[in-house]
């Protein structure tokens, strides 16, 4: 650089004030003050420690551990764009959408770094991007994308998922699992696990904007925005929408610490802004929800099917996943994943003092199930031919017929008790024979 250049640069540099920032790896950067101050954490540091902080290389502001130089430069780019006041909301949105396109790993780092710098708009942006990645994917896919360790036990995996699936047939199984769940919970409590008490004081606007963001139809933040439908089709039953004043129902809680330092929540702004524009239908349309929902349903079914098969293979015992035919006679009938799940979960109850032997197995109509360890009776191993047991689709408890007379009572007891839990049983299905 020639002397002339230096001479030109210097006056410019004198105009802006700079701050020195140091990341944990020791590298120090010089950044324009107004850009750096966009980050609440840096802002607080400067204000707290007085004007001297960050003013030179020696007293550089040290940044939290989660901010590495690469992330810092990304974040500063973000700040550089947004701290300019003159930009329209649309411009900002377009910029953000481009900005957030990066691989998952960097996205996580970015979210982490933004979180430690308390830059809430960027935290929201990256969180939402990560949420979009998670949404609609099977757990296996998610594990692969994020490289999550597959460290849950099989029982832990199977248990909650069944409970959450909305299929009436699962109710049949769920009653059996209810006790087991309680057991596990109690064990967790004993281990002293505490669920954090998170008292989250958020403002009314924040809550509404969240709900508005999630619900297409609950749209209304701008008071001055009126729906035409009310006027013209006054015969239609239109329900009013929840709204919040644009001029701010200023009930911002004192302890709204979760809102972070930057006062304008861009998520809120976005919602309000998108409603300001005079779109005819006034919906906040991200176009993703219904499609992804469909995908999700399919994925959940897929996953259930896959889980069932992979689980069975990994259980180390030779079991073949065979589909439970509802008709009981092996009739060709298209099975949903739920039926498979149903079949695969012949339930086990937990004794207080015994480790459950958990075997989820799919049983073909003509197969036998071995039930052993009945409490209170001789127990022993009995074979029951499950072809006699027909599960009626819509009802429970299961019906059965053609059970050998001398076994009828026993079977009835076993099955009815597994559903109603008058006493605890341990059912161990250890061998399966295809007839």
């Amino acid at each position, binding site marked *: 650089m020639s002397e002339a250049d230096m001479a030109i640069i210097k006056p410019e540099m004198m105009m802006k004030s700079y701050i020195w920032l140091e990341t944990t790896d020791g590298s120090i950067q010089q950044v324009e003050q107004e850009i750096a101050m966009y980050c609440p954490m840096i802002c607080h540091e400067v204000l707290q420690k007085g004007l001297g902080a960050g003013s030179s290389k020696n007293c550089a502001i040290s940044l939290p551990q989660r901010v590495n130089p690469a992330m810092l430069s990304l974040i500063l780019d973000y700040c550089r764009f947004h701290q300019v006041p003159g930009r329209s909301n649309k411009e900002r949105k377009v910029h953000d959408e481009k900005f957030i396109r990066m691989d*998952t790993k960097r996205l*996580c780092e970015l*979210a*982490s770094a933004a*979180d430690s710098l308390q830059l809430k708009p960027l*935290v929201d942006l990256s*969180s939402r991007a*990560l*949420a979009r990645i*998670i949404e609609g*994917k099977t*757990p296996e896919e*998610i594990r692969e994308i*994020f*490289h*999550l*360790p*597959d460290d*849950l036990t099989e029982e*832990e*995996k199977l248990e*909650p*998922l069944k*409970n*959450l699936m*909305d*299929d009436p047939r699962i*109710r049949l199984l769920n009653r059996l699992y209810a006790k087991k*769940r309680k057991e596990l919970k109690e064990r967790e409590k004993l281990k002293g696990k505490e*669920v*954090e*008490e*998170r008292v*989250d004081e958020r403002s*009314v606007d924040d*809550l509404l904007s*969240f*709900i508005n963001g*999630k*619900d297409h139809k609950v749209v209304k933040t701008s*008071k*001055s925005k*009126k729906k035409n439908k*009310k*006027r013209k089709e*006054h*015969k*239609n*039953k*239109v*329900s*009013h*929408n*929840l*709204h919040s*004043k644009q001029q701010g129902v200023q*009930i911002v809680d004192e302890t709204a610490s979760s809102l972070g330092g930057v006062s304008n929540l861009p998520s809120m702004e976005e919602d309000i802004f998108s409603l300001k524009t005079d779109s005819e239908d006034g919906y906040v349309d991200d176009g993703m929800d219904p499609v*992804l*929902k469909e995908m999700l349903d399919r994925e*959940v079914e897929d996953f259930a099917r896959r889980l069932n098969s992979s689980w069975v293979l990994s259980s180390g015992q030779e079991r073949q996943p065979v589909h439970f035919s509802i008709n009981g006679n092996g009739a060709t009938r298209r099975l949903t994943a739920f039926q498979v799940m149903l079949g695969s979960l012949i339930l086990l109850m937990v004794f207080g003092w015994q480790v459950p032997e958990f075997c989820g197995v799919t049983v073909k109509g003509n197969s036998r199930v071995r039930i052993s360890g009945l409490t209170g009776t001789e127990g022993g191993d009995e074979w029951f031919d499950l072809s006699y047991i027909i599960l009626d689709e819509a009802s429970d408890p299961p019906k059965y017929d053609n059970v050998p007379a001398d076994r009828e009572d026993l079977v009835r007891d076993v099955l009815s008790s597994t559903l109603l839990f008058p006493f605890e049983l341990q059912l161990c299905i250890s061998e399966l024979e295809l007839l």
Partner: protein
Amino acid sequence: MPKTTEYCDEKIEEILCEDRISSLPDDLLVTILLSVPLKDAAATMILSKRWRFMWTMLPILVYKESDVESKNSVWDFLDKSLELHKAPLLGMYMQLGPQCPLDADVGKWVAMALDRGLALLIFELRWSADPTSLPMTLYSCKSLKILRLSHKVLVDLPSSIWLPSLQILELNCVVYKNEDSLKRFLSSCPVLESMTVTREKDDNVKIFTVKAPYLLDLSYGNYMSDDDEEDTGRCLVIDTPALTYLDIADYSGNSWSIENTPCLEEVYFNVDRSLLGFDKFLRSFSKVLFLELILTDKMIVCFSTIEFSRLTKCKLFPNNSNWMDSLVSFLHNTPKLNNCCQKTNHQPPIASMWWSQSISDPECLSSSLEKFELIDYGGREEERELVEYILTTSICLKTATISLSTLKLEDEDITMKELKAIPRVSITSHLFFKTSHK
């Protein structure tokens, strides 16, 4: 040897570092899950140990029927997942559609949510059974700030009610135990600022009284069609001295009463049927800043005489035949009008006598009107005259927008040329056209 172990260590480290997301703090993971639809979020339970109970810490839960057609209700998912959820709840959104099972114990989960410090409750129930009442703890919930009840809900209050934090209340087509219920409800919400009510069917309240001393916003929609002309004795009574925003859509033909509203600023008035006592109503709007109105024949006389001294923005939807006349007289009565939007009628307007005879132009045209919009321009001579009038007399005009009605106009281009040719007194003004295609 050292080399290989080093290499191994590095590799292990690399693999460990690969899982970036799990190293994020709990708060952040919950923030991420908040943006994921609840079923997906709940499914993260089986990802790994770290994620096992992450979703149970979600502070806001949203249960919505995913598919109106399907026989399965979100209720099943709701019922099971809420057993697992442990953390304090900030917001609960429950939308149960017609497929919700009739034996669903909805009250149980509402009560649980209220117990956990709930601030926002949105509850919609559309099952085929009768309206159900909600747990009594709802009416003494200290933390509740936003409440919305929709459809099959019976507002049945306990003897002691107190909702000290409730700011926003929305009652959509609910049924009230009796007339008293509503009054008592409102009087136990000391900080209520915004209220929205819709009524569709008979809800046991004849005299619907909205009495709240600090209420700022009120939206009232009455879609009950009382087709018979006889007076059902129903009426709406508004007694809200602090009200600044009022939105009324009333197609029931009920009568009204509105008490003093000195602070009223924005009014949306969509009342199509003949009303008794609207004079008083209209006069109570004389100090507003914004007015949106359906103007019926019966209102015209009264309307034309009201002086809207502070009005800056208005939108008029005429349901009468001489809207042009009323517009011009209106312009005379609105000295500060800045933004005027007028929709034409299907009936051919009777040309106003005002501008042909007028001594002076309306004050607003010479001093304040900056935006003018005409919707459904049909190209009729009278309409064109009106546009011409506005364009040639509004000195401060910045934009004029004409929405062309494709139904009425044969050739839009010619119309646009015609209108563009009108000499505008405000040189800097822009003339915009809106057409319905594109």
